[in-house]
């Protein structure tokens, strides 16, 4: 038998198996978590206060009034107790995933910034996002790739910063891109086994950013445990780690 025929048989077999698997996954997973991904043109909220800059921070040291009025750190709520994880319900998870989807074009896209920022100065992102922070109802998640310096090269604001009247013109904004949804669950070897990590871990080195005290519903039931990957295995495929023999 010739090589092309072998390939075809394999291919058809693979396609059938994939189709069954996908259909199964969709029915078993999707009904559990009806996450709605907004279309890329749906605007995200931008009603939050402007983030401070390093310049603001420096001025604060010289100006007592500012120090009391504007110091975000002073306004922050106390850090939640690690043992107070609460119940993680499916509804909470679904809400969290939907919330995440709102300012991401697809799962894995850098989220847009839901508040105004200083457009030129080096924005002082780390004041709130360094360790994570909660002020009243607003939560600033902790950065999960701490070695990166130029935050605004990937994260842009959700609402335009240009003052004044926008120009008239027929340029259309509609776009039919439909982004990849967030994975629902990791794989478990048996009921009760720790699930594998169902998403890439590249630039997501700090699990607590999404699963820790300042996470909204995606949080872990055991936030006091810090060495996550001791039990939860990342996926070589997601992390683009091919077998060495195949590396170029």
């Amino acid at each position: 038998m010739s090589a092309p025929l072998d390939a075809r048989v394999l291919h058809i077999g693979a396609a059938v198996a994939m189709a069954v698997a996908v259909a199964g996954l969709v029915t078993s997973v999707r009904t559990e978590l009806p996450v709605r991904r907004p279309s890329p043109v749906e605007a995200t909220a931008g009603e939050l206060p402007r983030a401070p800059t390093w310049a603001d921070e420096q001025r604060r040291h010289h100006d007592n009034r500012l120090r009391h009025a504007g110091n975000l750190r002073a306004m922050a709520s106390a850090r939640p107790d690690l043992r107070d994880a609460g119940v993680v319900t499916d509804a909470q998870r679904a809400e969290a995933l939907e919330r995440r989807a709102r300012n991401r074009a697809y799962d894995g896209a850098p989220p847009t910034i839901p508040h105004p920022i200083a457009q030129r100065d080096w924005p002082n992102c780390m004041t709130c996002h360094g360790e994570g922070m909660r002020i009243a109802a607003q939560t600033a998640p902790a950065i999960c790739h701490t070695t990166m310096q130029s935050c605004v090269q990937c994260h842009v604001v959700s609402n335009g910063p240009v003052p004044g009247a926008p120009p008239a013109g027929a340029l259309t904004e509609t776009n039919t891109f439909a982004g990849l949804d967030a994975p629902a669950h990791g794989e478990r070897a048996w009921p009760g086994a720790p699930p594998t990590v169902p998403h890439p871990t590249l630039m997501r080195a700090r699990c607590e950013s999404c699963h820790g005290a300042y996470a909204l519903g995606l949080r872990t039931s055991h936030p006091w445990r810090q060495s996550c990957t001791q039990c939860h295995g990342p996926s070589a495929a997601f992390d683009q780690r091919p077998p060495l023999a195949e590396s170029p």
Partner: protein
Amino acid sequence: MERRDLLKLAALSAASSLASRRALAQVPSQGAQPPALDPSIAARTGADVVWNKAPCRFCGTGCTVQVGVRGGRVVAIAGDRLAPVNRGLLCVKGYHVGLALYGTDRLTRPMLKRNGRHEPITWPEAIDVIARRVMANPRGFAFYGSGQWTIPEGYAAQKFMKGGLGSNHIDPNARLCMASAVTGYMSTFGVDEPYNCFDDLDHADVVVLWGNNMAEMHPVLFSRLIDRRTRGERVTLIDMTTRRTRTSAFADHVLLFKPHGDLALANGIAAELLRRGTLDRSFVESFCAFRKDKATPDLNGEAMTFDEYRQRVAPYTPERVEQLSGVSAADVRMLADLFSDRSKKILSLWCMGMNQHTRGTAINRMVHGVHMLSGHFGRPGDGPQSLTGQPSACGTAREVGTIAHLLPGGLLVANAEHRRIAEEIWNVPAGRIHPTPGYHTVQMWERFSTAHDRGGDIDTIWVQVTNPAQSLPNLEKLFAPSRAMADKFLIVSDVYPTATVRAADLILPSAMWVEKNGMTGNSERRTQQWFKMVNPPGEARPDVWQTIAVARRLFELGHPGMRDRDGAFLFRMRNASGAEVPAWDWAHFADVNVDEQLFEEYRRFSTHKHKNLAPYGEYVRARGLRWPVVQRDGAWRETRYRFVGGEDPHVAPGRRVQFYHSVTHDDRAQIWFHDHVNPPEMPDAQYPFWLCTGRVLEHWHSGSMTMRIPQLRRAMPNAYVEVNRDDAARLGIRDGDTVTLESRRGSLSLPAWIDGRGAPPPGTVFVPWFDERLMINNLTLDAHDPISKQPDYKKCAVRLVLARRPERTP
């Protein structure tokens, strides 16, 4: 069925589909349809998403992205972890590049303008219209492309024009973008393109930015540099700029200079090195010679002695440089201190600031000169490096040579031996290639916009992959007039209804990015390859097919240039068994990998100027390879540093540095002297402000793709004019007021942003050019560099008038 069974099944199917792809890999490449899966490890499956590699569609950095495809559509993008350029990181444009395919107003049918309206026609009709225009007047036909042409697309256009029509009227928009860097490299080293590479970003101690807002324009490279600081490394960043930008916020020193002050600064550093005696004598004596312009500046000038150089540069004392450039004498000395210290590795980077410059060739030469004079050359992290703005400005415009005076591989149309080599490879009769360079960009559009009886001898232009109705300078002069002339015919291949498309007589819908196979070359000589992953919308087809189809129609109509020496069609394609494949017929285009066939032919040009390329298959496996790629010990090996012993395979054994393409044929590079000169137009009483134009992080080129990506458009929805705070106070302008900018060529009203994304110094305003509704190039100057012919978009004189204060809602 249990869910875990399903998951196991999914894993199993993923594994078996991998296996089947391995089996497929044994089959000779069968082209682009059905979606050609990368047979290498680059493809991986996660559930039902198939991932594959491609270089990003946007800038010249050449990040590799992983494209996730499901159900025939791109659904996700990830930074490619194995990519040496970006190591898994992308910028906001790169992360959203997949959305560029899905704007709702994609062009899907060929359209011909009849009675002032664009009406749908069939592909055979459209191809026939073009072929008959060419047949009627081959000399009046010009091809205008860009650094966004893939390598095979550019190669097909190049061969069609120079090897087929025997006409050199082909030029890319890279003329507006890279030409001065090219002439700088040519006249300094005798051969184009950076000798060094992005590895320098990992090794430099000091980085000097010559008018380059790297944080916004090359964000991934900027992060590669600046993130070293979080690893505890010391990186000194010197931002030499004409306005404060996001880059300035990271800089140790911000040196604000007056427009054209870079010429004085380069001379100032050189003069101090000579005065102090801290130049690298051994490097200069062993590897350099000195050169100056003739009375009429040209590419190679004339030799001068070291003593003459010393005399001419000496007047540029720090104090005089302060007067000319506005940078303090203390800072000029600080720069001289750095360049005097050879224990530090200094990397100079530049892009449009030095290239879009009426003295662009001069300043490029001078920055190379400062590095060679000081011996900051040849070590990793130590040297001058030009950055590019388009994905294949290097790979296509410069290497394939889709420029009026070039042949592929760095060969020249004016050189009889080079023409002979090209005619040999193309198998066309001797004398087919015209020995005179064709019209450069500004000339081409000037002649297209001039009536035939007044010398406007270009009557048809075919534009592919660019948007000249927005990107040319002085649009009222260079673009608008032809649109009112009945005998001028504009053909445009594009993906969205850009300003150029709307003005076209014939519109051809194109496939873009991963809707076709492709190859590009980034600014560190890295050639990359990708396979088609999704189908183009409607009847959109790849540009390379369009060019070949027109060539075939001309062949059928009897144009003699479309035949080779043996009477066969110029673009003959063969499949693995040697049978001819009619790739010009859309039904058979995918029967063969056209890219591979064209690349393998093009590759034969690459050895003549030591720009050796590897076989197509090597690029399929790799995340790009930097040329020269030479086979050693059975493996194809790339080159990090040209001209450097132990790195470049073309350097003779035992030599530390060898400039083997030296214009003086003695292995020496040239250190040039140029005086400081003022720009051609400067602010005066009537037009008191400098106007600088440029880009912003979110938008790329004319915004035709990025303005259709909601995340990018929302982050930067329209153009604006940055006004200095004091100027605004003086003129009574408030943030958000509509102001009118006027130059001697045109005017434009747009919102004022006081100290916006950038903060210009007093007397300067800045406008980004991405917004097709606010076309700043109606105001810019078409004055250009005498050698590179590249226009200066960075400086002209304007005035500012308060037009309207918007109603403020309480």
